[in-house]
Structure formats: C-alpha cells, structure tokens
C-alpha cells in the first residue's frame, strides 16, 4: 500500500515539476530551483521542531526566502542567482544546526517510505493546481520572456505573473522535497524539461513532454526503489538522467 501511495505521489509531483520546469528552462531559472530546494532544509528543521508536515514547513520557509531574495534584489540590484546563493547558504547552515542527526539524510535526499493517504491527497490537489495555473500563465510568461515591453503594452502585468510563477515554484519545491529531498529538487524540475527540449519541435510537445517525462521518471524511480531498496530520490534522478541520455540519440536539430 505504501509503495502504491508513494507511486501516486511521485507521478503527480514529477508531472507538475516537469511541466513547470519547461517554463523555468525558458526563463533560465532552472538553477534557481536548486538553491530554493536547499531553502526547504530550514523549513524541514522548523517542521521537526514544531511537529508538522515537512512540506508545510518547507513551503513557508521557501516563500520567506523568495521574499528576502526579492527584497535584496530591489535594494541591491544584484542578480537573482547571486542573492539566491547567499540566502540558500545561510538557510542550509541554519538548518543543519537544528535538523536531528538521524533526519539529516532523509532531509537531503528524500524519504517516501512513510507516505500517508492524506499527504497523497494534498499532493494530488496541489499538483493539479500547479499544472492548471502554469497552463494559464504559460503564454503570458513566454511572451514576457520574448519582450517584457510587448507583454506590458498588451496589458499583461508581468510582475504579477512572475509572482504567481514563483509561488508555483515554491509549492513544487515543497512537495518535491519529500520525494528527492532538499538537495535535488532542481533535477526534478530541470532534467525532464531538458529531455523534452531535445525531443520537441513546438511548445505543445515541449510542455506535454516535460509533464509526461517528469511523471515517468518519478514512477520509474519509485518502482526501482521497491526492488532495489536504494533511496527513491536517487533513483528518480538516475532514471531522469537516463531518459535525458536516451533523448540525445533522438535530439532534434
């Protein structure tokens, strides 16, 4: 039963992360997902201290971290990537002070061995929400990437959509932390999108490819975990990387 629940959870988070990742890759923000994933670590520490679900702790700390990054960006005009690096480094150091030693590895690479039906239900709802919202903002964000001025001149509130987009990242990173841990959430987001980029010729194929490959990588990783016993987070990343390598053979020029 537990493996079935983990499988469902993995498929939904993987699909939502893969789909969102196709947008992140366009915005050249896939690497930001890594440091944001690391920011979940102090959230996990907080969750342990308060005795709440780690995704809830992770979500609030990631939102807080995004707010701090945004504030620093406004004040300093330094690149977002640099500020994210500062905030995540402080976050990780703080987290390692408070995470109990026996919980450190699961926090870093994920743990799907004890998934509750309630957690799966919440994950399904939030994954659907992220996919739905991402679909709604996809064209607007892409147009803003082509030209923020063209998008704004057409009445698109670029700042608002970027904020919604960051919220989606925060949700996915918080959900992903249970599956692949705080260290590897970037891979959950970036690898399926890269694989899909190699195989697609238009936005429809690309975004759908990210969604399917994200779900498939997580499903493969969780099933492999059932047979091998190696942590699922690692196997998800390996299966995702394997799909990427295969895609290189069929890469469209």
């Amino acid at each position: 039963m537990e493996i079935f629940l983990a499988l469902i959870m993995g498929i939904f988070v993987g699909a939502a992360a893969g789909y969102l990742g196709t947008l992140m890759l366009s915005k050249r923000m896939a690497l930001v997902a890594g440091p944001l994933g690391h920011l979940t670590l102090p959230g996990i520490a907080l969750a342990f201290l308060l005795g709440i679900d780690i995704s809830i702790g992770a979500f609030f700390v990631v939102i807080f971290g995004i707010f701090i990054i945004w504030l620093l960006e406004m004040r300093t005009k330094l690149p977002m990537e640099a500020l994210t690096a500062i905030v995540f480094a402080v976050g990780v150091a703080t987290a390692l002070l408070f995470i109990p030693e026996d919980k450190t590895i699961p926090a870093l690479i994920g743990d799907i061995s004890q998934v509750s039906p309630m957690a799966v239900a919440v994950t399904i709802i939030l994954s659907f929400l992220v996919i739905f919202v991402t679909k709604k903002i996809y064209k607007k964000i892409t147009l803003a990437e082509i030209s923020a001025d063209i998008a704004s001149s057409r009445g698109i509130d670029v700042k608002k959509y970027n904020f919604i987009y960051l919220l989606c990242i925060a949700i996915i990173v918080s959900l992903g932390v249970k599956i692949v841990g705080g260290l590897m959430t970037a891979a959950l987001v970036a690898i399926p999108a890269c694989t899909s980029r190699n195989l697609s010729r238009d936005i429809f194929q690309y975004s759908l490819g990210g969604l399917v490959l994200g779900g498939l990588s997580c499903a493969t990783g969780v099933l492999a975990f059932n047979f091998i016993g190696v942590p699922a987070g690692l196997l998800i990343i390996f299966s995702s990387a394997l799909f990427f390598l295969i895609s290189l053979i069929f890469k469209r020029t």
Partner: protein
Amino acid sequence: MNEPILKVKNLNVSFGEEEIVRELSFEVKRGEVLIILGPNGAGKTTLLRALLGLIPYEGEIDWGSKNISYLPPQELIQRKHLPPMTIEEFFKFKDVDKENILKIFEEVGLNASLLKKSFNALSTGQFQRMMIAWALVDNPEVLLFDEATYGIDAGGEETIYSLLHNFWEKRDLTILLVTHDLDIVYEHANSVLCLNKEKMCYGEPTKILTPQNLEKIYGTGIKFYKHVHK
C-alpha cells in the same frame, strides 16, 4: 485625419536625477504617420515607453484609442533561450484564427510554410516582417514602432517601410515610428517630431527639416537630400 488620437501635454520623464524627456507637448491625428527623430540618447525609446504607460512619467498622455500595438527594437526581442516555439504558436498568443494569420502573412509577403518554422529560425528581414504581421494581425488602430529596420540591410529597409506604408494606406492606421533614418522621412511621414530630451522641432517634414534644425538636433552639420523613388 483631423481628429487627434493622441494628445501629450507637458510630458516629463526622469530616471532618478537624470531628465530624459522635458516638457514635451504634441498631438497626433488619426491616420497620421509621425516620425520621431533624434540622436542616440535623445529620449525617443523612453518617449514611446511613456506613451504606453510602461514607465512612470509626469504630465498628460491622452489616447483616443485603446487598440494600440507596439514593436520594440529587434535587439530587445529575445529569440534564444525560449521554448521550441513555432511561428504559428506565437501568433496563437493573440488568439487569432489561422485564416487571419494566413491573410496577413500574404500581405507581408511571407510564405505560409514559415508558420511551422521555429521562432528563432527566421532571417532578420523575415523576422521583422513576421513581427509586423504579428503586431497588425488583430487590427490595431495605432502602431508604435521603435527602430523598424534595426539590423536590416538597405534593400530590406525599403521593403519594411513600403510594407508599413501599404498598411497605413489600406487600414487607416496611425503610426508612430522612431528612427535614425532621415532618408525615409519625406516619403513616409506626415509629420516629424525632432527630439533631443525636449522638442527641437515639430511639423511637416518639408517645413521643419531645415539644415539649421538638423544641426540643432544632432549638433553637427548634417546635410539632407530628398530622394524620389520611381
């Protein structure tokens, strides 16, 4: 062409301490082609961005239409690091049907087969014609176009301006065009706004583009030759 579609009064735009546009007032009539001329750093692009409400400004900008399309310089349009998007998908951002896309493609002289091409696979000239088609596919009343021929060779420039001229004639379009290109002014503009932070001259090209005015704008002896294309 008598009704104003745009009234600008006492427009001031500053970035911090630096004044970019100072006490600018002018009007654009419906169906007019206004060319905004000026040297680098004169505030031409800033003026267009203020007219679109993209940056804060002081003064009054009163549009008689909400149906406005804008094309920035091609150098500011991102073509790399995008999803693998086809031209057709790019047009679908505007929710227009394929029939309209094909019609405007014909009008700008692009082959329909390009619709299946990748967004970044077009040449500079093709890309600019595609962008004109995109800007005009949903029938705007006003087109604001910044550096329409940036990066395009001389032959291509003529094509772009002819295209804009055709659309202007056929659609009763109002066009505000930012350019460095003095050659096009006589052939395509009804009026000219010479800008160098503030209004240096404004009116019909034949009346205001005197060597004295050009020297005042560009600060050097510029000679202007009127071309007549046969």
